[in-house]
């Protein structure tokens, strides 16, 4: 008989969606360190989430969303050295409208 007490699926689910209070979250987290089986459950949750995102019909972003996104990646944030031709030029980026 195993002495391990697994968190129930409802608890794992609440952990996965970030709904647990800190103490309980820590308990589940500690259990997960030791339990490949429960880690597999989390992995399955993630796979389901990915498949659901894949199948989701999008809601239109605002008109300026792509411009904003392209402007935001211009801001230097520890970007690695880049040897290609993308030196700060937004002009050549094709827009999908």
């Amino acid at each position, binding site marked *: 008989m195993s002495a391990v007490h697994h968190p*129930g*699926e*409802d608890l794992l*689910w*609440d*952990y*996965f*969606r*970030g*709904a647990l209070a*800190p103490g309980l*979250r*820590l308990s589940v*987290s500690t259990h*997960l*360190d030791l339990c490949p089986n429960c*880690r*597999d*459950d*989390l*992995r*399955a*949750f*993630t*796979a*389901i*989430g*990915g*498949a*659901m*995102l*894949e*199948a*989701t*019909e*999008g*809601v*239109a*972003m*605002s008109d300026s*969303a*792509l411009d*904003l*996104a*392209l402007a*935001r*990646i211009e801001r230097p*944030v520890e*970007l*690695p050295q*880049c040897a*290609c031709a*993308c030196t700060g030029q*937004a002009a*050549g*980026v*094709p*827009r*999908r409208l």
Partner: protein
Amino acid sequence: MHFDRALTIGSSVRMISPDQKNCAETPEALITRIAGTRDRAAYAALFTSFAPRIKAFVMGQGMTAQEAEDLAQEALLNVWRKAHMFDASKASAVTWIYSIARNLRIDAARKAKRVRELPEDLWQGDGDKAADEQIVDTQSAQAVARLLDGLPPEQKDILRLSFYEDLSQSDIAKTLSIPLGTVKSRLRLAMTRLRTAMDGKRTGVKS
């Protein structure tokens, strides 16, 4: 109170069949191009494909349109910055992106809550096991989607309410007016089926 199941379940998020999409380039290839050459055209294509879906997804979970728009922006920005960490052998692109968006949504919810009621240090440093590096899913999202499609309707309902509406299992039980034990057993059946398929396909798990 009466719930019309047909109207209630998953009503806020519409689904499209996987066959409807015919991307010229896979998202995995786009992320690889971003990682390799900071390819801005690849980023634009990825953004156009995923930002609307992320927005829809988190709106279904209760975010306002503006919050959802901001989160979608933030998620894609993270994809740009973390593209070099993406490993196609471990996760499909959509699963990786889902995970990024999910973490951002949890962070946003905790931040809002923290301000109200909790000391900040309690929230830090306990290591979220569902974080990016934990994902090892060698199945394509399409394969998982097909698998989910094959589940009995009552199991699909549980998954939709779980993921799209972000409900706890007891809230799902209330919503469907069924016992909590039934919710648990349906989820268990769906998970068992999915895990069996995943285990069968797994090629390697890091220890």
